[in-house]
Each structure stands twice: as structure tokens, then as C-alpha cells.
């Protein structure tokens, strides 16, 4: 396997032109995405790093794709802002990998995911052409929005070199509550109750405990309003759902890292809807798991990937394997799509990008 680390867009273009098959990689934090590539040249993007333009007053930031998420977050934090799509691996991922994998953490619940905060990008496609897609301002509807298309594209259509995001002011005051339920159905009913209510949560995750299900909730806001909001919220949930117990937890980064407790050779992300959770969950009870974003994402850690694959197939769901060596990172129901293949035909007709 050849690894090459271009230091400029021009070098990346040349690399693409000169390679037969090429695979983009950042810090390599999601090992499964970089396995099973049968000797494709690795384009290491970590040299294409750094913030290009950050204008807090515009709520926009433009960074090179190989920039570590950690570096970007620190710069935003200095200005009291954050990336609300909450990149999943804040300590190890690059921002390009976060977009390519469409990987958000729990705080994505409040304002939206990667697709909701990406504004534009610069890319090099499979023909080695370098061009821009989208825009650099918070609102833009000129041309086809290929920047959103890049979200989740796994580098298979074009390699990102630069990304522009919308960012928001952050209110870094949090309180977290845990509600325990006997059955999954009860916990989901609580999610449905919250969904139809006025409470604006910062995050809402669900995880199985030994004999019960725990709903993790987090409120963000001003110090002076949090006690009252917490009070109202917990009272409403207590009176409308059949819970076992309620507890305030120490709010911490670990508490809200959906992967913190998940151990297993493989880690799989699944996008699903809350009503698909019960059927899926009963098929993977052997695996460690946590449901994020109000039951819209499943994180599954397992030693037995084929069991998860079977469960996904049975539920017509697709998963993305992030950890461990696999033949194909995409498992479960196939995602082939006629529209996507037309784009591939234009951006990478020779199938170089893998």
C-alpha cells in the first residue's frame, strides 16, 4: 500500500491523476473505513490542515479538510461558538473525515447534523479537477448543492480539501438528568412525549442498563434559568411517563460521548427512526449499544459483525462500520442509488476514488 501526503491541492490533483485507485484518509480514526481497499493509494490529507478563514460575526468558518476537529473546536470555543453538529470523535478525527462519514455526536440533537451545518467545500474529483461547491455565506441557493452531497460520501465521489461551516454561539452551561424505565417501550414513549413538548433539549440519548433503559437528557442555557427549566422538565416527564427513577448526573464530556461505554472489536453507526428501534434492538441484544439523537441513530459495538449485519438486513437498515478491519464498511441493506451513480459517473467516471 502506498501512502502519499500531498501538501497542496495541486499535489493532490497530481496524485489523483497519477493513481489508479485512491483513498483519502485523515487521522485514520475510523479504522474500518480504511480497510479492505486492495492496495489503493492512500492520500493522507493531514498536511492540508489549518483554519483558512474564521469570522465569528458571520457565524462561518472555512478550514482545510485535514484539520483536526480538536483544533477547530478550540478556535471556536475561544469566540464562544461551536459547531452544533458535534463531530463524533472530537479528539481524534479530522473535519474532512467527519463530513465524509457523516458522524455527529449527541449534541447534534439540538440544531442538526453535519448536513445542516456544511455550507460549501473545495474538492478534487476523480478526474483530478479542483473546484468549489456550495458557498461561503450562511444562506445560498445558487447552483446544485454538491456540498451537502459530500456528507456521508466516504470520499468516493470527490476528495474534500476545504470545508465551510455555519457555526453558532454556544451556551456552555449544562445540566443532565437520567430517567430510568423498566422497558424499552416506556423509554420510547418518554421520547415521544418530549418530542411533542416545548422542552428544548441539548441532547437526548437512550441506553440499556442491566435490567432497564436509561434516558439521558441534557438542558443547556443561562445559569439563572436552568434550575427552573430543569424543574419543569423533570416534573412533566415524571407525571407523563411511567419511570422507575430519576437522577441528576454530573454533566461531563464522557457522559455525552455516545461511544464512551461501547466496547467491541467493531463499532457500527445506524441511522434509523425511533419506531424502528424495538425491532432492531431485539435482534442485537448481545451487542453493546446506545441510541442517540432521540432514537434516530444507533451506535452498536460488537464482536460479531455478521449478527449486526443480519439484523440490519432483516430491518432493511444500513450500517456504517467504523472500527475493526472489514471487507466493506457499509453493511446491512445496500445503499446503491441511481442518482448517486449518475453523480459518480460525472465526478469519477474511472472509479478511481474508493
Amino acid at each position, binding site marked *: 500500500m502506498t501512502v502519499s501526503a500531498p501538501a497542496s491541492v495541486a499535489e493532490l490533483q497530481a496524485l489523483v491523476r497519477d493513481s489508479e485507485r485512491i483513498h483519502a484518509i485523515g487521522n485514520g480514526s475510523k479504522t474500518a473505513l480504511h480497510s479492505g481497499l486492495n492496495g489503493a493509494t492512500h492520500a493522507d490529507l493531514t498536511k492540508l490542515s489549518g483554519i483558512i478563514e474564521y469570522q465569528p460575526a458571520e457565524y462561518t468558518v472555512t478550514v482545510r479538510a485535514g484539520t483536526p476537529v480538536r483544533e477547530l473546536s478550540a478556535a471556536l470555543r475561544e469566540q464562544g461558538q461551536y459547531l452544533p453538529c458535534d463531530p463524533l470523535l472530537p479528539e481524534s478525527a479530522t473535519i474532512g473525515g467527519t463530513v465524509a462519514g457523516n458522524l455527529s455526536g449527541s449534541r447534534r440533537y439540538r440544531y442538526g447534523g453535519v448536513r445542516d451545518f456544511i455550507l460549501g467545500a473545495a474538492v478534487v474529483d476523480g478526474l483530478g479537477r479542483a473546484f468549489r461547491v456550495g458557498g461561503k455565506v450562511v444562506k445560498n441557493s445558487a447552483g446544485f448543492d454538491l456540498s451537502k452531497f459530500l456528507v*456521508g460520501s466516504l470520499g468516493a465521489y470527490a476528495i474534500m480539501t476545504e470545508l465551510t461551516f455555519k457555526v453558532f454561539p454556544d451556551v456552555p452551561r449544562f445540566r443532565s438528568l437520567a430517567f430510568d424505565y423498566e422497558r424499552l417501550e416506556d423509554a420510547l414513549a418518554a421520547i415521544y412525549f418530549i418530542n411533542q413538548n416545548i422542552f428544548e433539549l441539548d441532547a437526548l440519548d437512550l441506553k440499556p442498563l442491566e435490567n432497564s433503559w436509561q434516558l439521558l437528557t441534557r438542558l443547556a442555557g443561562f445559569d439563572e434559568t436552568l434550575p427552573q427549566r430543569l424543574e419543569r422538565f423533570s416534573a412533566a416527564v415524571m407525571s407523563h411517563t411511567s419511570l422507575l427513577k430519576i437522577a441528576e448526573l454530573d454533566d461531563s464530556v464522557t457522559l455525552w460521548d455516545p461511544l464512551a461505554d461501547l466496547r467491541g472489536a467493531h463499532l457500527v453507526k445506524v441511522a434509523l427512526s425511533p419506531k424502528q428501534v424495538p425491532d432492531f434492538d431485539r435482534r442485537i441484544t448481545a451487542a453493546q449499544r446506545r441510541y442517540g439523537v432521540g432514537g434516530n441513530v444507533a451506535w452498536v459495538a460488537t464482536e460479531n459483525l455478521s449478527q449486526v449485519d443480519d439484523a440490519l438486513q432483516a430491518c432493511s437498515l444500513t450500517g456504517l462500520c467504523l472500527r475493526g478491519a472489514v471487507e466493506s464498511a457499509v453493511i446491512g441493506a445496500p445503499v446503491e442509488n441511481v442518482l448517486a451513480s449518475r453523480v459518480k459517473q460525472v465526478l469519477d467516471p474511472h472509479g478511481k476514488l474508493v
Partner: protein
Amino acid sequence: MNRAFIAALESIYPADRLLTREVELLPYESDALTAFSAVPGAVVLPVNEAEIIDTVRLCHEQAVPFVARGSGTSLSGGSLPIPDGLTIGLNRLNRIKKLDPEQRIAVVEPGVINLAITEAAQPYGLYYAPDPSSQSICTIGGNIAFNSGGAHCLKYGMTSNHVLGMKVVLADGALTQFGGESIEGVGIGPDLIGLFVGSEGLFGIALEITVRLMPQPELYRTVLAAYDDLGRAGDAVSMVVASGLLPGAMEIMDRLAIKAAEASVQAGYPDAEALLIVELEGEAPQVEAEFDQLRGIIDESGAFEVRVANDEEERTRIWKGRKGAFSAVGRLSPDYIVQDGVVPRSRLGEALVEISALKEKYQLEVANVFHAGDGNLHPLILYDGREDGALEKAEALAGEILALCIRLGGSITGEHGIGMEKRDYLPAMFSEEEIDIMQALRLAIDPKEIANRGKMFPGGEAPALAQHGMHPLERAGVISRE
């Protein structure tokens, strides 16, 4: 339109849903951008998915260009017919197929009116967030084609950010589906929703759309601040942004726009050079605390009058004036162009000064309405189409404003799209190679270029500019204008 094609349409549609007589076609010749008009060869009014699919496949087979149309409210000429092409009116596909308040989603047909979703969701304490000014009539299908925005986009985004799943028929008749009921949308694999939304009808027709609903905020706090200087209103926006507040909406109107809105809905706006509307929304305790902070900022910003909506009725009145402002300008001028450009928010003041200079240069009135929170300008250029060369002059001014937006690092359209109106400006924003790639993409999906032919890309067939100047009856002395 050739006879064989009409005959084929007759096998899909009963006579009352296949319009071919002149009297039936003329009312479809323009959308809300009346500067352009083109008579379609026929209009069909499908009532189900199968009819749409059959129609698109037929168009592809016979290489007949088509445009899908909802309520015809596009301000960029997006639903302008293709001369002698087919117009597919989707407004009868207006069923909300599913509303699941527990998961906060709705599944709708493309002809469903934007506001109808909110009305259906309201009993469950939910609403559909994107709120273009025409929300009472514009359809979701059109919102998808043009990635419509509205006043409340800053916080929760535009149409694209609220679509979770779609079923579409591509221009060559291929059927496909992506996304679903998860808030993640497509989730695994490239975000096809993001690509399709905003493609201006060039890729195909959305047949079924899953949208996400949001919980209605517990409390709105809407503040109306009056300034004797437009720049000061702009500065106030910067101050709000710098404070770390994230309002749901920030809107500015200038004197002329205020005058028009006032004439239209008697919103009770103060007499001012500029009005700023700032709206906070969310949980009551948090909003009240934010409101205290906002009051302080507004008081410091030099507003000479500040009003706060005390109830829903007052809030509605403030917004009604703003939302009707475009059309209300029809009261002040026989003709006008609605422009839609974006500048970085911090350069709003600069943009306004330049627009003001352009006004002088062209000796035309310009009313300004804009989504200040996201730097989205809507200058309304007033002209009188009866004067020779007035339209051309107004268009030249509009062109300069767009050039200005690009120069300041913005965009030529924030939410109305390129459509017919701005297709010649696309090269100002994208390089030749970028446009070639977009064109190649279009050809890969629509090899015969039948879907909304003539829109978005520069050149193509020249559209008919609407008739201006003396009315024939005026010339004959039959009528006069007071």
C-alpha cells in the same frame, strides 16, 4: 405541440385535466416573476404519482421539455413554462399522507401547501419551520426545487434542512428513493436529499416527501425597533450577533418598504428610516432571560422607538407587514423587480451604502427588505414599465446589485434560486469548469435536457420578455390609468 404527443397525453389524462385551449393556457404563462412569460403547449393536472411518472417517461421518450409547477409563486421564474413545452401542475397532489407527531414527521405529496403542514401539525404542538413569505400558498414541491427559505432560517435552516426522505422520478423516468423517517436523513451514503433539494426542477420531480416537524416554541418575544438611519439598524444586528444571542429571526425594512407594508396591512409600524424586527423563541424562562439581554442591546443601539408584541395578535401583525412587503410594493409602483442576493452579514452596511449610490445613478427607487440575520438582501427595484427602456434600466441596476453581492463575498441568490431570472449571472459566481461540471451532472440525469429546460444555466432559448409600455386599449383611448 405535436399531435401525437397530445394524443399520448390523452391516454393518461381525462379531458378536464389536460388543458390545451388558449384560454386555459394563458393564465399559466407566468409565475410570480411577470417580467417573463411563455405559453406552454399544454398543461396537465395529475392527481396521483402514477400519472406523473407516466408523463415524465412520455416526455423523455418524445423529448418534450416539461416544467413542474405548484402554485406558481416563484420569484425567479422557476416555474415559467417552456415555450410549447408541457407544464405539469402538481397542486392537486395535496394530500398529507402521514402525520406522526411522536416521531415529529409528516409524509406529504408535492402539491401540499407549506402552511397546510403547520396547520395539520398544530394540534400536536408541532409546526413546519421553513416559512417563505408565500407560505400560505406555495407548495412543498416548489420549496424543494428552490430550497426555499424564509425569515426564520438562521436557526433552523432552509427547506433542505427539513427534508428527511424523498421519492422522486428523475427526468429520464427512473424512479428512486432516498432517506426515510430518521432525523439523519440519508444517514449512510452521500446526502442525496441535499443534492436534490434546490436543483430547480432540473433533476426531476419529487413525488413524496418526508419532512421533519419542530415543536412550537413555548414563547415568542418579538421586538420592533425603529431607527432614523438604516446603518444603525444594521449595526444593531451586529451587536445582537456579538452578544451571543441566537434569535429565530432578524429582519430589516427601509422607509419605502415600511410605507408599502403599512399601506397594505396597516401593521401600525412607526414612521422611520429603518425598522428592525428581532424575534426570540424557545422555552419561556430562557427566552425571558434572553429578552432582557436583547432589550439592553436594542436600547443601546440608538433605536428611537421600541415596541414589543404583547400577544400573538400583535406578533402576527408585525409579521404580516413584513411578509406582504414584496407584493405590497405593487401599491407604490406599477412594476418592480424583487432582487435576492446575499452578502456577509458584517458587510451589510457597506452593501446598503452602495445600493443607495446605485439608486442615485439610475434614478430609480429601491425599497429594501432583508433577512439581516443571514445577510440575505431583497432590494425591490421600482420602475414603470410604460416608460421606454425602464425595464432595461431596472434590470441593469439589479445586475449591479448582484455584482456587488459577489464582490462582497456573498451569493447571487439566497433563497429564490437562479431560475430564469439569474441564469446569466451564474458565471459570475462559478467558474467555467464548475458550470461545466454542473451541466455534466444535469446531462447524466437528464440526457435530453427536458426537465425545466432553459433555467439555471446561462444561454438557451431566449425567453419572451413580457409586454410593457402602452396598453393597446390605452393607445386606442379606451382606457386610462388614474
